[in-house]
């Protein structure tokens, strides 16, 4: 009787062990290990675009449940990008990426504003943001809820893939998160949508011949209602 009970318990434990092992196996098949973040060489390295996970390779890393995908452009940028031959509107995004504008997170560095002004690009977003930069370059919360919102949008327990138009806003966002305590080894700047070559682009453009309209309803977008927040 005693032996039978022990055998029964051993079988149950063995079953539980096998169950866990099988679940882990399934999980690792779905989420194979990611290469560590590694800065590209050359000019793209200045943007801190990742050498391994970027516009060319991102398709291999989509639909993982251990990753959050964030595109940090605005739907409609307030800056005069058309003066450089660009456009203010979000023309498309990679499937699975959710849009959280960097401009709503914190203010642009002064050097960047001046540089853009020298290129005849003015009117960068300069209104309400979750954080501001002080003289020392530290990020200071503007609202009681600022950090909570940031942690919700960029969960610390997940790997974070950041994308924008060319890689620069994604770089700004990465630097901000790291400065606020996020783990640098879990944040990847995967580059710019304009360089994306994969099969998961979702275009928002509607070309009517003489003018364009944009299907922003396609975009998973995180708005921040600053008026509902408590100012510090």
């Amino acid at each position, binding site marked *: 009787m005693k032996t039978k009970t022990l055998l029964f318990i051993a079988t149950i434990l063995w079953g539980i062990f096998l169950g866990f092992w099988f679940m882990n196996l399934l999980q690792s098949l779905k989420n194979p290990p990611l290469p560590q973040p590694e800065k590209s060489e050359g000019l793209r390295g*200045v*943007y801190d675009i990742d050498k391994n996970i970027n516009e060319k390779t991102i398709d291999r890393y989509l639909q993982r449940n251990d990753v959050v995908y964030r595109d940090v452009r605005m739907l409609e940028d307030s800056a005069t990008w058309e003066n450089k031959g660009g456009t203010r509107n979000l023309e498309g995004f990679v499937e699975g990426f959710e849009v959280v504008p960097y401009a709503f997170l914190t203010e642009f560095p002064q050097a960047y504003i001046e540089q853009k002004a020298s290129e005849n690009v003015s009117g960068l977003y300069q209104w309400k943001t979750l954080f501001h930069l002080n003289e020392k370059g530290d990020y200071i919360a503007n609202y009681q809820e600022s950090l909570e919102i940031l942690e919700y949008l960029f969960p610390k327990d997940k790997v974070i893939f950041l994308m924008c*138009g060319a890689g620069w806003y994604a770089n700004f966002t990465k630097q901000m998160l790291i400065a606020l305590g996020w783990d640098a080894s879990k944040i990847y700047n995967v580059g710019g949508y*304009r*360089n994306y070559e994969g099969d998961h682009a979702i275009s928002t453009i509607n070309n009517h011949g003489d003018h364009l309209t944009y299907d922003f309803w396609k975009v998973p977008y995180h708005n921040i209602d600053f008026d509902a927040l408590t100012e510090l």
Partner: protein
Amino acid sequence: MKKIVVLLGVILCFITGCTPEKFQLDEEFYGTGVIKEISFEEFKELKNQNYLLFTFNNFCALAVPCEDIFKEFATTYHIDFLSMKFEEFKKTPLHKTVSFAPSVLIIHQWNIVAFLDSEKEEDLERFQDVEAFKTWLEKYVSLTKE
């Protein structure tokens, strides 16, 4: 295998004493130093020409915008460039070789002789310094009309 082929190429190059031969751009490109933007349709009209092609991304945000470097070079040395937005450039067969913007391509009779690679450390200075760009370009192209 790829490494062996490259190695053999390099050895062959040493044996034959080959260096990239300088060539002239088409006469029209020794001009006033303008950067002329073209579309994909205009690109298709180009015939066997020798020229410099700058492809750019509107959101280039280097400390010194790279287009400023190429503009300064163009006006200093009176060499004209063609330029294409990267969206247009992607439609060309050149995109198979040059994956990312910005870049400057040296084109000799439809072939890419050399290009600035935004993923190469050695090319970074050439995007940011007129003299470094000139030194690189001079290896392939004669800067004065003969």
